[in-house]
């Protein structure tokens, strides 16, 4: 009745759970990191707002405040006409003489907007741009529509793909683990028969097996998490050593602690539910 008396089936249960959850976890880790990577790219999406040339400094400040209040905006940088001129001189020192004698800076002031860290959509960006263009102090708004559309499409396909693959993998994992727990349960049928013979109630009989299922699920998911962590560290080490993707290597990260705990709790629940359904499916037809 203890885990020790059925070492072989318990061990098989733990190993199967560990390998199944490692496969599912690998997919989740990949998805998590690709999602992070897209988030980084998304942060680079910029919308440039050019205010009217004759806008007063106070009105420019008011415009800045109005735009900043929009929840779709993460951050905003104001570049005045003078700053724009200085930037040009700094970037193209050889051509700076071209602007001499013009007096006032010929460059327009601009507001560079960074989008909030949410999944961009073409509609959302278009709505934002429309809102900005309707402002009477705005001359024009410039953004890379094609790039945003392409990114939105990539994200949509990725989400759909992840949902399908993730769903299939999750279903496969649940089926494999439930069957493993069921097999472990079948090796204990004789014990259960004996306990019923001497007047054991269903609750009395079930509790040790549920605990056993929880231990199998918990240990299996714990081992899977260790495999994933080890594999992830090895992958990061290789990337640093080979320097294959340069600056992007810092983008990769392991699951946050809360998600790791969730994975272990999921394993425990799977073990418990698998045992529960096996037992009650079997006991239902027996008095």
């Amino acid at each position, binding site marked *: *009745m203890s885990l020790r008396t059925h070492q072989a089936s318990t061990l098989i249960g733990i190993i199967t759970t560990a390998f199944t959850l490692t496969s599912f976890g690998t997919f989740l880790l990949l998805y998590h990191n690709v999602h992070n990577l897209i988030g980084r790219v998304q942060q680079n999406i910029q919308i440039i707002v050019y205010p009217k040339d004759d806008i007063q400094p106070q009105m420019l400040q008011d415009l800045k405040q109005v735009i900043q209040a929009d929840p779709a905006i993460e951050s905003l940088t104001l570049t005045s006409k003078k700053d724009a001129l200085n930037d040009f001189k700094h970037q193209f020192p050889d051509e700076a003489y071209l602007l001499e004698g013009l007096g006032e800076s010929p460059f327009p002031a601009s507001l560079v907007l960074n989008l909030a860290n949410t999944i961009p959509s073409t509609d959302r960006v278009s709505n934002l741009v429309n809102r900005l263009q309707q402002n009477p102090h705005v001359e024009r708004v410039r953004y890379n529509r094609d790039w945003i559309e392409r990114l939105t499409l990539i994200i949509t396909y990725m989400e759909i793909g992840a949902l399908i693959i993730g769903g299939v993998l999750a279903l496969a994992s649940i089926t494999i683990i439930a069957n493993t727990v069921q097999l472990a349960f079948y090796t204990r049928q004789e014990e259960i028969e004996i306990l019923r*013979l*001497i*007047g054991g109630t269903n609750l*009395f009989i079930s509790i040790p097996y549920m605990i056993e299922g929880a231990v199998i699920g918990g240990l299996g998911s714990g081992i899977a998490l260790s495999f994933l962590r080890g594999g992830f560290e090895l992958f990061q080490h290789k990337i640093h050593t080979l320097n294959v993707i340069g600056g992007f290597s810092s983008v990769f990260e392991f699951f946050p602690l809360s998600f790791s705990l969730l994975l272990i709790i999921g394993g425990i629940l799977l073990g418990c539910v698998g045992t529960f359904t096996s037992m009650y499916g079997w006991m239902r037809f027996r008095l």
Partner: protein
Amino acid sequence: MPPSHLLKGDPAHPPRVDRMIQLFHVTKYYEGCLALSDISVRIEKGECVLLTGPSGAGKTTLLKLIFGSEHPDDGQILVQNRNIARLRRADVPYHRRTMGFVLQDFKLLPHRNVFENVALPLIIRGLSSFESRRKVIEALRAVGMEHKQTTQASVLSAGEQQRACIARAIVNSPIILLADEPTGNLDPHLTMEIAELFKAINARGTTVMMATHNQQVVEQLNGRILRLDSGHLLSDQGASA
């Protein structure tokens, strides 16, 4: 049908406590095949009843019905004046705790020692370890297995395994002891030993009901004989008046 006071517990007609098992027109089918047909029997407290008959006669079915493992398709079964046919699923384990059951194939936990196997019914009842110990030793002494209490069940001989099973069946001091071919796997010498044990248990006042093929056992126990064939009760020899 049984008298209504037996089914409803009418206080004006208190049930007779000496009536241990009563079957009223019990019929049982297994997937359309008749296993027991219109069986009516009354077994008194302290009786030793032997169910005999060829394989498929319905002996095991009868024991299972009394034990609560099966429900009759027709008729009523009263065990200690409790209607088993109407027993709720959740009450079945509590009904089983009032009786002991010995099977042909022993049914011991192989990885547990004799003491642990015999103590199981007491653990289920939630008895203190001190009380459990006392009762287990007592039961093991009754079957002559006191010296084997630390031996793992899997290394016991067939006779010893059956003795351990009998100890487990009587450790709760049941008023009824059911046995389904308890000597079926034993040689003639061990068969006689086990039969002698059942005789001793019955002599202490426990109602014994045993299904057996073995004529030696029938002769040695010298009890009431219910002869079954194809689900029908053919004869009832030695019934108390």
